[in-house]
């Protein structure tokens, strides 16, 4: 079989993320691989020796390594994305940018528009994004005014409460007799929260988790991932809902020729342990998974564990002095159980990704890692602190000395920085959340992730927050922990590749690596740092194949 023709992409600039050759003018690709990066002149020996064509489509643009989100949840995204977004913050989605609805009237008007444009009168309408801070009070009568018979379900932005209209109550067969006088169901207002929420959710689940909905959601996720400029994502908890279903659906929807990205799958060991009974059985199962790998879907020797609770719910475990109101965070996994699990995977040579949100969670991870290093030292062990909300400067030093990585959701600072300063833990510690400057100063491999749907799946947006440390009120928080644009780009490319164990193949542009590129209209290293998130993404190239990106409708 003849080797495929070389394709040369000249560009305004190529940012390689390879320190030995940081900038170039063109990249030559054969099949799914890069054969040479440099100038048209420097790559002449290749071009003289092989049939080639010069593809000018990116000649005015900037070529970067394909973006990598090392922590995202396709399953959660698949549930959320079929819903209508009516939100106080802007969301850029492939099918349109959601412009902010910041008043009660704007919220109801938007829901009314959605209702009016939905043809089938029986089709339920799911809305996500209500928040009382902007949208005022919500109630069953208000939704009934829009339409009392068609089911309308309004989710709070946090997912921790919801509202139903008459149609939805009837559709879900929630009657006054059953639910009328329960404390956490406000039946007249159709408001369900805490256990009341669980009650409604258990009735909604058959609909939102139905296979066809799930498939539709994954289709949308594919668009979102492409739209954000990714060519690789990691599913950082495969089995979060149900391992077999998720794996089956991923194979059906993602492993297709039209999918312009690959997925690294990291099994959720906490969830699996409940199903399998013991760490040893989960380990054996995890070891068996790579045999099932497909072209785009890959299991390897990475595993996910959980320490403390959700950051958005203020369940992060904190060291002294804790939360202002005195409440405590939660452990998702009891420390002893976590230790047993970590030891099992550590001794088997696995790369452990530990979900930590608070500084006490980080402390637990560090104590356990130190213990395991003492028992059985490992180098290049790939242990990664995931999320990394709160930490202390002293912990950063320990992370560096123990050889661990950090994968951070820096968007916390943007969305929650102001709120947590006022109503969480106070300004000092809130302003220092996602302490990334210190990580880089200590030489820690540091990546940025979205944990989508916890943050927008837009690497440039994450990079923008990390570079500017600006919160949703427009205020800079802790400028000392800002990182440079170059460091931020590394955190969404080569360092993200390191964190998921694939830096030998992806994450930078050099001869021999996969031809994965993200094409930008402007140069992020020369742009005004405040503009980084708005740089248009023109296309991606996945394994040598260009996939253009249409700008979103407003």
């Amino acid at each position, binding site marked *: 079989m003849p080797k495929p023709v070389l394709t040369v992409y000249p560009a305004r600039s190529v940012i390689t993320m390879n320190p030995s050759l940081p900038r170039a003018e063109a990249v030559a690709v054969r099949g799914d691989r890069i054969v040479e990066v440099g100038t048209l002149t420097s790559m002449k020996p290749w071009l003289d020796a092989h049939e080639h064509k010069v593809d000018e489509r990116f000649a005015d643009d900037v070529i970067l390594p394909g973006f990598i989100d090392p922590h995202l949840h396709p399953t959660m995204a698949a549930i959320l994305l079929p819903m209508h977004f009516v939100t106080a913050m802007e969301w850029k989605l492939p099918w349109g940018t959601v412009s902010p609805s910041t008043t009660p009237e704007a919220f109801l008007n938007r829901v009314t528009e959605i209702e009016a444009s939905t043809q089938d009168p029986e089709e339920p309408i799911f809305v996500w994004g209500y928040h009382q801070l902007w949208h005022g009070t919500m109630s069953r009568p208000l939704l009934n005014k829009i339409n009392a018979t068609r089911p309308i379900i309004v989710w709070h932005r946090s997912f921790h409460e919801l509202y139903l209209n008459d149609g939805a109550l009837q559709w879900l067969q929630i009657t006054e007799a059953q639910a009328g006088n329960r404390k956490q169901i406000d039946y007249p207002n159709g408001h369900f929260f805490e256990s009341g929420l669980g009650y409604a959710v*258990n009735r909604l689940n058959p609909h939102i988790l139905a296979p066809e909905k799930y498939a539709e959601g994954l289709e949308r996720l594919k668009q979102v991932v492409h739209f954000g400029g990714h060519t690789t994502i990691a599913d950082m908890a495969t089995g979060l809902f149900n391992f077999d279903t998720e794996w089956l659906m991923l194979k059906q929807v993602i492993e297709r020729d039209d999918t312009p990205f690959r997925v690294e799958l990291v099994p959720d060991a906490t969830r699996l342990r409940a199903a399998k009974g013991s760490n040893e059985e989960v380990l054996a199962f995890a070891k068996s998974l790579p045999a099932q790998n497909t072209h785009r879907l890959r299991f390897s020797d990475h595993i996910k564990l959980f320490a403390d609770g*959700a950051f958005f719910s203020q369940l992060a475990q904190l060291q002294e002095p804790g939360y202002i109101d005195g409440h405590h965070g939660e452990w998702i996994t009891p420390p002893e159980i976590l230790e047993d699990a970590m030891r099992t995977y550590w001794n088997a040579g696995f790369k452990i990704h530990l979900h930590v949100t608070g500084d006490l969670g980080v402390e637990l991870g560090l104590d356990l890692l130190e213990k395991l290093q003492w028992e059985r030292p490992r180098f290049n062990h790939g242990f990664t602190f995931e999320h990394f909300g709160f930490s202390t400067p002293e912990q950063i030093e320990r992370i560096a000395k123990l050889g661990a990585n950090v994968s951070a959701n820096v968007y916390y600072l943007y969305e929650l920085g102001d709120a947590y300063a006022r109503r969480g833990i106070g300004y000092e510690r809130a302003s220092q959340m996602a302490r990334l400057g210190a990580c880089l100063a200590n030489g820690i491999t540091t990546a940025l992730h979205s944990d989508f749907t916890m943050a927008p799946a837009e690497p440039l947006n994450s990079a923008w927050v990390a570079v500017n440390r600006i919160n949703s009120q427009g205020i800079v928080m802790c400028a000392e922990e800002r990182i440079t644009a170059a460091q931020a780009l590394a955190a969404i490319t080569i360092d993200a590749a390191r964190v998921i164990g694939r830096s030998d193949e992806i994450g930078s542009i050099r001869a021999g690596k996969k031809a994965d590129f993200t094409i930008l209209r402007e140069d992020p290293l020369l742009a005004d740092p405040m503009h980084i998130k708005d740089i248009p993404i023109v296309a991606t190239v996945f394994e040598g194949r260009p996939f253009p990106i249409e700008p979103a409708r407003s």
Partner: protein
Amino acid sequence: MTPLTVLGGYLGAGKTTIINGLLASLAQQNDNPRIAVLVNDFGAINIDAKLIRKHRGRTMEMTSGCVCCNIQDDLGGALDILRGESFEQVLIETSGVAYPAKVADYAVTWPGYRRGGTLVVVDALNIDRHKDDKFVGPLIKEQIAEADLLLVTKLDQLDCNQVQKLWDSLPKRAVRVDHGYCNADILLASTSNSIDTSKGKTANDHSDQFRTLAYQSDRVLDHCRLEVFLDELPEPVVRAKGWIHDSEGRWWLQSVGDRWTLELASAVPAGTSLVFIALANTPSDRTIDATLAGLEQALHRL
């Protein structure tokens, strides 16, 4: 409405042993109420399957849901399933790192259930170490602080001085549990139908740890006085339960340790029928009699 008891406490305190002990002792007396046990733990579930079968009961496992959202709710799902199966009692064994009072608040507001008490198992041997632990100290203190009643295990492994010291340090009413045996009437919200009042004991009580008093009346109690009476239940009374007819309606009473609740009851037998269980061998051994007197007052001064 099915009563729901939550049994919490840190890892290794003996929650599962207590549940197995309960199932075994009930089965021995051919008193086999239908009991469902919900277990939220990390790994193998050790509830004795043979015993559960004797109670035509069932064990359900829950895993903690998705950490970021509430789309998955195993506990609620389980409660929905169990509601359809008419159990007499549901027991939830929480995971060692759960806040049992929070689980109870969640579960008892689920349609079809009523409060049966939050009991927290305290590991006498390890409590001091656990309380000072950097990672779980605050959790364990909060578990204890929010419990209705404490069940203390492994006391037999301490000497007398240590036992006294521990007992003095406990912030609330506590019951001693030896070798996993805990009186069913302490654990369950339903009233045992076999109270031998002449002995001051229930059929379930094999030890001299408790004195039991049954109270029955056809007369209507005064609601305000009843509330005062419940607020002032003497310290050794660790449990009171049954149904009440008072000036404001008919109620289920659950009093567990420091907390009592009255829940509106529709389908209860007529009159008032209550059981009080108090620690025996305390300096105030006469409290049961005093309790009865208080109740008589609540009744007569209507």
